[in-house]
């Protein structure tokens, strides 16, 4: 498939935004149960939510470039019963609204408990809004990744690993940003968020490796024989019906050499996993600096872009069988 930058930015940016929100809410839950000694402070929740909203808005903005007729985008909400794309279009703004509500409640300081259960569990409005937003964030992860995982013809995508990896990558990069924000606000939570970022990044490494291995072993369900219905072991295409190019040759091929594709894969394996972890380690053990954390996130985000590019490049559409020879 042709890697479109609009979609690469959309999926990676909203992933960061979603992960960042999950990081904020995780911290709040930890505080609630008394497992976290430092209080992140209400300002942290506000800034964090705003930053998450910025990432989501940037993603939404870049998605517009993928549409031929963005002015009709409002129509996309109509087929949520059958289309994952439609569901994503509904889930994305809803997620943004619930996160904005979460930020607003923190800004208004509505953190007095509504009900208190036992000694240390108290339910306040931000907690309710945060729970709703968390549900929305996970629904959005599912909707976004199912757009790809639901296309059964693209066998490389048609696996639960796609959903798992989109989610893990979002969480890993989001916690990374949370660590960065915590370092900037000096609230002593760098190692908390950093620690979770390490866990998520490691899990993502396993998930992505599994997908790479699976796709390496994958055999195409269709062949040129089934595509044109000629039962002969040797079939070659002599002409695809035109001399130039067409939508079919542009949309479904990446037009890059196998060497470039391999280089991108090796690049993302390096930028996405070991490098950010290395850059993150000093901050976990007490040293570290804002610059190092920024570099860690920068490396991971670049890696994410490369990973998403490769995600498209490695996907093989059966229609490509019909477009193999230009003459």
């Amino acid at each position, binding site marked *: 498939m042709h890697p479109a930058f609009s979609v690469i930015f959309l999926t990676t940016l909203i992933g960061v935004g979603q992960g960042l929100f999950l990081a904020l809410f995780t911290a709040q839950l930890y505080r609630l149960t008394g497992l976290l000694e430092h209080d992140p402070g209400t300002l942290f929740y506000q800034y964090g939510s705003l930053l998450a909203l910025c990432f989501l808005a940037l993603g939404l903005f870049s998605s517009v470039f993928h549409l031929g007729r963005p002015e*009709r985008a409002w129509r996309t909400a109509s087929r949520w019963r059958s289309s994952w794309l439609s569901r994503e*279009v509904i889930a994305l703004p809803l997620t943004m609204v619930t996160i904005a509500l979460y930020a607003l409640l923190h800004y208004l300081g509505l953190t007095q408990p509504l009900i208190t259960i036992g000694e240390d569990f108290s339910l306040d409005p931000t907690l309710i809004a945060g729970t709703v937003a968390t549900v929305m964030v996970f629904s959005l992860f599912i909707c976004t990744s199912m757009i790809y995982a639901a296309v059964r*013809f693209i066998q490389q995508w048609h696996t639960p690993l796609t959903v798992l990896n989109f989610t893990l990558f979002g969480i890993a990069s989001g916690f990374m940003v949370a660590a960065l924000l915590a370092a900037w606000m000096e609230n002593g939570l760098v190692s908390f968020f950093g620690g979770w970022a390490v866990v998520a990044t490691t899990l993502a490494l396993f998930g992505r490796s599994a997908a790479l291995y699976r796709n390496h072993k994958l055999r195409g369900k269709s062949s040129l024989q089934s595509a044109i219905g*000629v039962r002969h072991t040797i079939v070659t295409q002599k002409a695809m019906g*035109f001399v130039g190019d067409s939508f079919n040759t542009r949309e479904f091929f990446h037009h890059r050499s196998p060497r470039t594709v391999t280089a991108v894969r090796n690049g993302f394996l390096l930028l996405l996993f070991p490098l950010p972890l290395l850059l993150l380690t000093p901050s976990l053990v007490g040293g570290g600096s804002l610059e190092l954390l920024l570099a860690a996130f920068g490396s991971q985000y670049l890696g994410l872009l490369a990973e998403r590019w490769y995600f498209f490049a490695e996907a093989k*559409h059966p229609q490509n069988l019909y477009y193999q020879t230009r003459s």
Partner: protein
Amino acid sequence: MTQLALVIDLNVCVGCHACVTSCKEWNTSGWAGPMSDHNPYDADPSGTFFNRVQTYEFGSYPNTETVHFPKSCLHCEEPPCVPVCPTGASYKREDNGVVLVDYDKCIGCKYCSWACPYGAREFDEKQRVMKKCTLCIDRISDTQLPESERKPACVLACPTSARLFGDVHDPDSEVSVAIREQGGYPLMPEWGTNPGNHYLPRRKIRLHIHEDELVRVNNPLQKEEIVPIDSGDTIDDVAW
């Protein structure tokens, strides 16, 4: 239920592209048009087509055979391209099974093209919406036209009658009989899309010509016999 579709005889198709040009001509000037082109008379021409004719060769030299393969939307009975459309622009007509795109609703997200295993949909770069074969819906449903012309442009244009058109659900239609009696098959059956369009396979044609059919051994009809003239006096014999 009716399922209109094409049956394409690969044994007959000569790869002349008459269906491609007639399709473009009819549809670019009609309801589905324009089907825009980019650099049509220049280097790297490209454009929107509903129908393409491809050429394949099978076997290895010298035992090869060429097959010309016209390719367009197959109007699947279980069209995977329809449910994925977020706007409802892609739909399958209840009354005749034709799969269509509403160009006024399409947002050009291209998701439907990913969900078609055959690459039958093409995005129009000028109009910025998705397009595909309509089975000339504006022709076949035009009751002003004489019955014999209510067929897709490609079917009417084909000089070898390699393209048949009709209802594949009607067991007595020309297309159903052809599928049944000449081994009609669908493309990529492994995906369960259940295409309406079918293809008729290449067949070995063996001519049995006997020696005596090549060499004239006698003249059974006596055609070239010199007819003896004994019809009495001619006008030349008449003495003046």
